[in-house]
Every structure is written in C-alpha cells, then in structure tokens.
C-alpha cells in the first residue's frame, strides 16, 4: 500500500476495484465503513454484487476481465472534462501528452460495450473520483489475477497520477495483500529477479554484494517464475522444494500441476499438514506452525511485526529456517550457522536497504513501516511524498485486451473465483477450526436465480461445471450476488477443486494466472 491502514478512514472518495474487502480483509473494511459513516463516497467496481457493493454509492458491475476498458474510460472522462490536477501532472509526472492522446478512443460509450457498465455511470464515477480532495484506490487480486494484471495496475496508476491522488493523507494506490506474509516473502528475496530488498539480480554490483555476504557468486540471469518451473518440470526442472504451499489446490490447472509435480525426480515439501501436495512428495518435513515459532510477518502496509511462540511445536516439528539450514549443511554449506530466528532476521536487515535501520529488537512493537534506511529513521508510513522511486511518476498507455478465453458456444458462462469470509485458501487451517467450519463446511456455486431457472438447475442441487481443462461437481446456491451469466466459486474446498478448471492464461510480464476469469459450462446433474 502506498498509504497506511490508519489512513483508510480519511478519504472523501473511496474507489474499490477487484476487492471483496469485507470478506477478504474484514478489519481493513471496517475502516472504510467508518469513513463512509463520516460522509465519504464509496465507489465499488466489481462484477458481483458483493457486500461492499451493496454499501456503495455507485456500483460499477463490470464484466469480468474488462477493467482496462472501465479504467481507461474513467481517465478519458477526466481528461475530456479537464478535471486533472494540472500542477501535479506538470511537476511530478511525465508522459501525460502521450497518455492523453492514447485515452481519446476510450469513450464511455465504447467502454459500455465492453464492460456492460452504463456510460453515464462510468462518467459519474470518474467525476466523483477526480473532484475528491482525497481520493483513495484500494484493490486486491481482482485486479492482478488476470492476463492484463499489469495493465490493470497501470490503468489505476494513471488515474491517481492525473488527479494528484498520491503522496498525501487519505489518498494513494493501495493493494491489499491476500496472505499474511506475502509482502514479506517478496521483501526477503523469494523472487526470481530480486535479492532481499528487491535488489535486482541482474545488477553486477548486487551480485558482488551478495557474493561478499554469502561466499557464492549467484547468476546474473533471473530465475524462472513458479508457473514456468512447473511447466518445465521433468525437462529443465528435476528437483523442487515447496514450503508451506498447497500448490495442487491453490494453483491453476490442477491436472497439469499434478502431472508436473509427478515428473520431478525429487520433491521435498515442508508443511504443517499432510496436504494434497505433500502426498506427492518424496520427503515431507514437519514445520512448526504459527503460535509455535518466533518470526516476523510484514503486513500490507509494509509494517514488519513480530510473531511469537506461545506453545511448543507439535511432535518433532521444527522451524523452517532450521530445516533449510540442515539441508544446506548436508550440501556442504557453512553459511547457515543460525541459532535463532532473530539471527536470520538480523542478517536480512543487514542486506536489505529497506530494512537497514531495523533489527529484531527494534521491531518489537511493530512501530515501523519500510523503507527504514538507517537506524534513527522513523520509517515511511506514506510512499511517494514529493517524489517517486524513479523520480517522476510515469504515465503508461495500456490497451484493452480480451481475457485469454472468452465465453463461447461450448463454454457460455463466466466463472470467477475468490475467497469467502469464513475460510482461507485451501482450508488447511480454517477447516480445522470449529467456528469457521460450523458456518461453512461445503463449497457452493453461486448462480443468479434467473440462471438457476434458465439452466434447469435447482438451489441445493448438484451441477457439473466444465472448462476445456476439466470438470467438477458442485452444489448450486441460488444467489443474486453474481449477475446473470457469471458464476462464482471459491478455491477453498478440495472436494470442489475449482482449479481443475482455471489456468486459461497468464499475465505476460508477471506470469500471474488469470484465476478471475474462466469460461465454463454449467449443467444440472441428477441425484
């Protein structure tokens, strides 16, 4: 997030897109509700009539995967009506002229044809956002899990740049991270192109820095993304270590994924439960869990915070860092002589400019937001104040593209996937907790009542849902949250492995899977 969570009750216009925040980030959503209670206007763009949309002043029910068209049209309206922040554009950005030209064709009428959102509604939303004193954008995976994920983010960035809604309280572009420490995993350098602190592996100076720290010269060539690694399993990739991820259920295209893992010579899984993925492994190593391990999570507002062990690990489970160190020692390395999580974290701080001013003790109360470049630095709750990392904010010119697959005669329905309030990911945790399991213990397919009738389905009855990659059986729930022609399902239940269907395409730059869009066919099943 560019702005802190504490800012979320300060905007006067809130624009949420691709985020089912009341279910996926409930505590953050409470702040938006408080902002609303103080009079803020809420604009929600989402294909479904989600709880946040029901609270919104304006709901833009765009067709799944049409975000670039919607956002481009909003920018078009702002430009045509001259509602830009001219001085912000002049002082802090570059590329305005080309984006202005580029936006000419993004008329609201054109966008209506693609998104299904009435042109007048698009105009209204654009004007409200542009005229806000403090306009803030919030988004989640509904923006990134598309083949156009990068284009979507750039489109949002254009909106914020042209209206000067950055670098001030109650503004910003704020992605809400889905997993507790996904921000941290990136911060730590678990990326094919970056060392810890997002330092590029292609930079020879970085190569030298880490060679000095670790005694190994690491390739200048970036690694593969996970998606590519799975694709090349058995050809280029022969051994894999998977830590704390139920790849088989959470990743797109289940069957492809299962075959890929099956082609490996050697699969090691480190996890807290014997997941579906662990069942395929050659070696399964039991990790100590949350509440058993000392460590650090960094939240969505870039705040490293300490987690602490309160109970002993179950059985012989051990911390991940210990496990990786023991394997490394057996491979002959002397670089893993750690006695505690604190030592590992402090090594990270010594190598990451973002964490340079932090250490284990300093983050005790979770008071800092990175970057914290030196020891007496107060941290950086807000990014982009006065300057962007590259200097000027750069406008981009993303073009609209259809999703990788679009509805057709054989697969006439849009499936979109996501999470539900009660459960998390593949339910390894929430499915083993009484309360959450009591409220929701079976996945259902959310189908609009009109479609339930038209397709010969029954509320509570079973349906077969198929894509070109596979099919699943799922119970039907008649619910007008999804619009006619679009159905919704979460990926939390292994009984309904929805990712047998997904996997139509990937963003060409990030390799992020298009999990939010998948054309399917839905048919009744008797019995």
């Amino acid at each position, binding site marked *: 997030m560019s702005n802190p969570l504490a800012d979320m009750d300060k905007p006067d216009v809130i624009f949420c897109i691709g985020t089912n925040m009341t279910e996926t980030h409930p505590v953050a959503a409470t702040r938006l509700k408080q902002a609303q209670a103080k009079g803020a206007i809420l604009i929600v763009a989402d294909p479904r009539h989600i709880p946040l949309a029901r609270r919104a002043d304006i709901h833009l029910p765009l067709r799944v995967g049409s975000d670039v068209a919607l956002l481009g049209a909003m920018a078009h309206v702002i430009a045509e009506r001259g509602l830009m922040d001219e001085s912000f554009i002049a002082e802090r950005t570059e590329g305005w002229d080309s984006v202005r030209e580029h936006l000419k064709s993004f008329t609201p009428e054109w966008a209506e044809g693609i998104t299904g959102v009435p042109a007048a509604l698009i105009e209204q939303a654009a004007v409200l956002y542009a005229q806000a004193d403090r306009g803030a954008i919030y988004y989640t995976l509904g923006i990134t899990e598309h083949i156009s994920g990068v284009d979507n983010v750039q489109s949002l960035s254009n909106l914020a740049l042209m209206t000067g809604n950055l670098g001030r309280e109650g503004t910003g572009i704020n992605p809400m991270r889905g997993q*507790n420490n996904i921000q941290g995993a990136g911060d730590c350098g678990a990326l094919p192109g970056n060392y810890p602190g997002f330092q590029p592996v292609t930079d020879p100076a970085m190569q030298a820095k880490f060679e000095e720290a670790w005694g190994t010269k690491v390739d200048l060539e970036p690694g*593969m993304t996970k998606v590519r690694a799975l694709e090349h399993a058995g050809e280029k990739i*022969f*051994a*894999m270590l998977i830590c704390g991820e139920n790849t088989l259920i959470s990743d797109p295209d289940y069957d492809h994924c299962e075959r890929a893992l099956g082609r490996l010579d050697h699969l090691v899984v480190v996890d807290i439960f*014997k997941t579906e993925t662990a069942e395929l492994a*050659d070696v399964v190593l039991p990790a100590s869990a*949350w509440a058993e391990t000392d460590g650090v999570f960094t939240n969505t507002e870039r705040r490293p915070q300490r987690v602490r062990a309160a109970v002993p690990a179950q059985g012989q489970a051990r911390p991940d860092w210990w496990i990786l160190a023991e394997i490394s020692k057996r*491979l002959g390395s002397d670089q893993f002589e750690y006695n505690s999580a604190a030592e590992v974290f402090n090594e990270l701080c010594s190598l990451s400019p973002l964490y340079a001013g932090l250490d284990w003790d300093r983050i005790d109360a979770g008071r800092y937001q990175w970057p914290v470049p030196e020891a007496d630095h107060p941290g950086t709750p807000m990014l982009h104040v006065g300057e962007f990392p590259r200097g000027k904010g750069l406008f981009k010119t993303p073009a609209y593209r259809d999703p990788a697959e679009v509805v057709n005669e054989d697969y006439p329905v849009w499936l979109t996937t996501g999470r539900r309030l009660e459960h998390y990911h593949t339910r390894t945790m929430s499915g083993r907790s009484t309360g*959450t399991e009591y409220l929701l213990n079976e996945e259902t397919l959310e189908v609009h009542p009109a479609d339930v009738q038209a397709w010969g389905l029954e509320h509570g009855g079973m349906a077969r849902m198929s894509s070109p990659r596979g099919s699943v059986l799922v119970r039907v729930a008649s619910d007008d949250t999804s619009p006619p022609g679009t159905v919704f399902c979460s990926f939390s239940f292994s009984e309904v492995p929805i990712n047998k269907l997904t996997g139509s395409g990937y963003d060409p730059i990030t390799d992020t899977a298009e999990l939010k869009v998948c054309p399917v066919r839905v048919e009744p099943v008797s019995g």
Partner: protein
Amino acid sequence: MSLDLTLDGQVVPFQEGETLYEVASRHGDKIPTLCYDKRLDPLGACRLCVVEVEGANGPLASCTTPARAGMAVRTVTEDLERHRKTLVDLVLSENPKGAEIDPLRGLASQELAQLSVRYGSDGTRFAGATSGHSRFDDPNPMILRDYDNCISCYRCVRVCAEQEGDYAISITGRGFGTQISAEFDVDLEDSDCTFCGQCIQTCPTGALGDLRALQHADLPEPITATRSICPYCGVGCSLDLLTKGETLVGVQPAMDGPANEGALCIKGQFAWEWVQHPDRLTEPLVRKDGELVPATWEEALDRAAAGFAQAGAEHGRRSVYAVASGRAPHESAYSVQKFIRVNFGTNQIDNCSRA
C-alpha cells in the same frame, strides 16, 4: 496556546476536544467506568465515571464532559466513592454472577468483577429483578449469549454499529425488560453477524463470552498472554495468544495493535484450533516402496539433501527449484531463497503470490 486544568490539585495540560475522562486517564487516574470503551462514542449511561467540577451543580460524567481550560476537577472524594459504591451494588444485584466470571470469556470480562472488589460489593444489597435472559439455545459454537449477566451498557451494540458498521444486534425493550438481540430475535448465524467477536471482547461483565476459549475453562494452569500477529490476511492484526501450560486456549485482540487497534475478524478471533489439531504433521516422512513412511530427522534430511545434490549433478544446478511460502515468517522465505542462491548459485526461486 497550551490549555490546562486542575486535576485533584495538580495542574495538567490537555488538548482541545478531549473529555475529562481522557485527560484524567492519561494522568494515571483510576476513575471507574463500565459503559466506556475508548474506541466508541461515549454514552454516559452507567454514571460510574462521575467527577466533581468546581462550580457545577452536581457531579458530571467525565466520559462525556469536555475538558475546558481552568476547570478544577476532583476525581476521588468520599461522596463520589459512596455514590460509585451504590451504583456498583445496584449493578451487581442485577448481575449476581458478575463477581466470578472466567477471564477466558473476553478481554473486558473482568471489569465488573474488579469493581466489585474495589467497592466491596457482593450483589446482596439490592436483591431484585434482573434484565436480559440468556440465549443458551443459540447453537453457534463461538459466541456465548449469557444475558443474565447483562447490565445494559450497550458496548456490544455500539461496537457492532460504530466500529464494525454491521448493526447486527440492537436493544429491545426497556428497564428490566431490556434485551440485546439480533433483528427478529433470530440466532446470530441467521443475522448480519459476521462473528468478528468484538462484542465479546468489549463486554464488561462476561455476558458475552468466547465459547472456543471456554472449552478450556477447566484446565488448571494460569492463563498466559503472548503478543503475536494473525496468520491469515495481509492486514496483520495484533492479538494475544492465550495459553494454559502447553495448550493454546484462545485469542484476544490487542487494543494497541498498530494495524487493527483492537479489531479482529472471524478468522483471527476464532480460527486457531488447527494449531494443536491431531492432523498436524509431527514427524518427518520419506517415500519407501511408493509409500510415505515415518523417518528420523537424520534420515529425512539426508534424503532431502541427496535428492537435490543428485538433480544438480545430473541435470545441472538450474534444475533445482524452490517455492517459498507467503504464509510462513520472514525467516522461512529468507532461508528458502538463500538455500537456492547459496547452494546452487541460481535464482530459481519464487513465492506463491502468482496464484
């Protein structure tokens, strides 16, 4: 311009907009409260927080009285304490069990019990009618609705409305007929309730309680609290892990959590039982004759390392890949990327953010 007032004979500064209670509690004062939660708009219902202000006719509720420059305020006098004792006696008579509530019920559940000690009240002074009837028939396994203990402070209703914006519960009836209920008196699961547990945690009498924690009420060990962070989404809510001996018995929100300031959602509040679930992996496993079978750490680690070494030797160092977790702490992700970079000199590492 600096503003100040006199508090029990001492001159103290304050800021425009603060209430007398806020000023006094910042100076370590012990004004008793029951209907006060610093996150909520003050209600001024219980009258326990009354103070004497020079020139005012009669005591004023400090939680609703704005501080003004030059005020002379007394927070503890014989009169005030007598008045407070009467109020506590009255409240306790409505709420006979108020003095012995299991602290596992909720974060604020001891507030009334502590007042009963401070004022030596046992609830016998005004025996009589009580308001609220318990809803033990509500089948949800998370929120205990023991309204026999309710003192109508409305903190639960206010936290649900003001903090959560959910308006799932409201007040019906008045006087001794007052009852906290969901719309149409339905069970919570059929209402707008999201089971965030905030009502439980603000209730000062334990009339609302955490049923997941209370299943461990009989464990003899004392309760220990350990500060940690919720393991679910990226908001990163601070919470306290409650343990008795080696058993995790519950979670309570941290009022000073930088990201959540006391809030939690259903997952952070109630979805922790998996930690000590019998399904947990408790020993290393290795595949032998096609089956995963238990092994010692020595054997499993040797096997893990040998497989990586062999792949590297046969197919080159780029053939070894690792996926780090977005769920595990930094020390895990850092170690996984270092494992690849140091042992194989490649960048064949990713995390699970792309799916």
